[in-house]
């Protein structure tokens, strides 16, 4: 079963500062268990990311998770742009590896246009991964834009 950070926040109204968070007995145990489940899921995400053999694999997964927030259709070029990579060839090995390991699904619309999705069905931890990335991770493309803005470009 997938763990969701957003559901956890909503369930206990953690982001509602007008209410007092009071947990007693069974409710506190449940809260604690759910919190631990989130931490365990994060730990499995670390484990998964650090064991991806393709050098750019982890970055591709993060970029894909981030882009899923704003785009409905994501292709390889979107990921390349988001990661600030100059040539798509640099990412081909990563796509191949991630598809082989069932981390992503690639739908070949045409010979050149491939739609990519995060495979949350086979990897339940990817739900929490996607939430964390979408809320807290800054892609290289965003970082570059931020530095350029600072430089006044």
């Amino acid at each position, binding site marked *: 079963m997938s763990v969701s950070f957003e559901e956890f926040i909503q369930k206990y109204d953690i982001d509602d500062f007008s209410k007092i968070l009071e947990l007693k007995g069974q409710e506190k145990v449940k809260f604690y268990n759910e919190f631990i489940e989130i931490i365990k899921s994060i730990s499995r995400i670390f484990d998964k990311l650090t064991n991806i053999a393709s050098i750019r694999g982890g970055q591709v997964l993060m970029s894909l998770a981030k882009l899923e927030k704003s785009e409905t259709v994501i292709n390889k070029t979107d990921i390349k742009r988001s990661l600030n990579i100059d040539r798509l060839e640099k990412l081909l090995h990563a796509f191949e590896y991630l598809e082989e390991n069932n981390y992503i699904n690639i739908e070949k619309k045409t010979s050149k246009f491939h739609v990519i999705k995060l495979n949350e069905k086979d990897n339940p931890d990817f739900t929490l991964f996607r939430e964390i990335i979408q809320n807290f991770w800054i892609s290289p493309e965003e970082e570059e834009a*931020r*530095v350029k803005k600072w430089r006044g470009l």
Partner: protein
Amino acid sequence: MKKQKNNLPDLDFENEENTFKSIEVIQKEFLKKTVKTVLYILIVLAVYIMYSLITIRPELFENTFIRLINRSCFSNITIEWILFSTSTFLFVYFLKISYLKYTPSLISFIKNESKNLGFDFKKEFNSGQIFLLLNSVSISILIYIDLGWIKFEDGLVSGFFIFIISAYLTLSLILPIFWALFDDKFIIQLKDDFYILFDFHFKIGKPKKDGSNLVGIRLTSNRLSTKNDKCGRIIHSKIAKRRWLSRRKISKFNPYLHFYEFSTPLNFQKQFLNMALALTEWQIYYGSRILCFDARTPLNKIESKDKFLDYYKFFANFR
């Protein structure tokens, strides 16, 4: 491995095989550069030794072209100064070049990566120009003295002039040498007051398949503030911890704070942007001094969270 337009091999660190090949290319280029530099050093030393021999044992070079130069209208001081200053500067310059671990392909790779981000990676080795400028003035003055265009009748004025010219000659050599040692650099200028310096590291031995031939790039920011500045120390520490910046110290005697970062060619862009954003944060927080409103309080007390309520809020906005 592809070749670039400028005939340099295109380095590729995207997989193990290509990384190994790229490291081999870097090491070969470095070896070539070192041999060339050592050769230059030997030539410079040979010239200097030869001149020393001419002045100490002139009979050895009787009836040779070298002797003719020595008997020219220029005094020994002028010729000796030209040879001494040039050979001393070139010796130091080549030693510095051989110490710096960079190769044309590696520089070209970093240039492309920076260009991709919209930054201009520059090799600023200005010591040679400074040496030429200062030394051409000193040589001109010495030639004017030889030709008799500069001469003083008054002993006192003459003594003062000798003192001034000696001081200038010394400075015209020391300044470029110090410049070569401490100020010749690889740099990306971010803004007027903000820049990042680069330093390359790799092992010179034969490339190993076990991956121990890591090519590293050390990034160092410009001076941020003095270490005595409590506000600077606090903000530096907060930003460095938050961004996982390298905490290595160049020297205990360096009185200034800098940001440091380490990258490999593969994650160069990411680490560079991390450093650039650290400098962005530094400019905002250090300039506003919001984070350290009580610089007189002992540092360990200032670091408590209640004194930094705004900090977390600001960084939250920064995401």
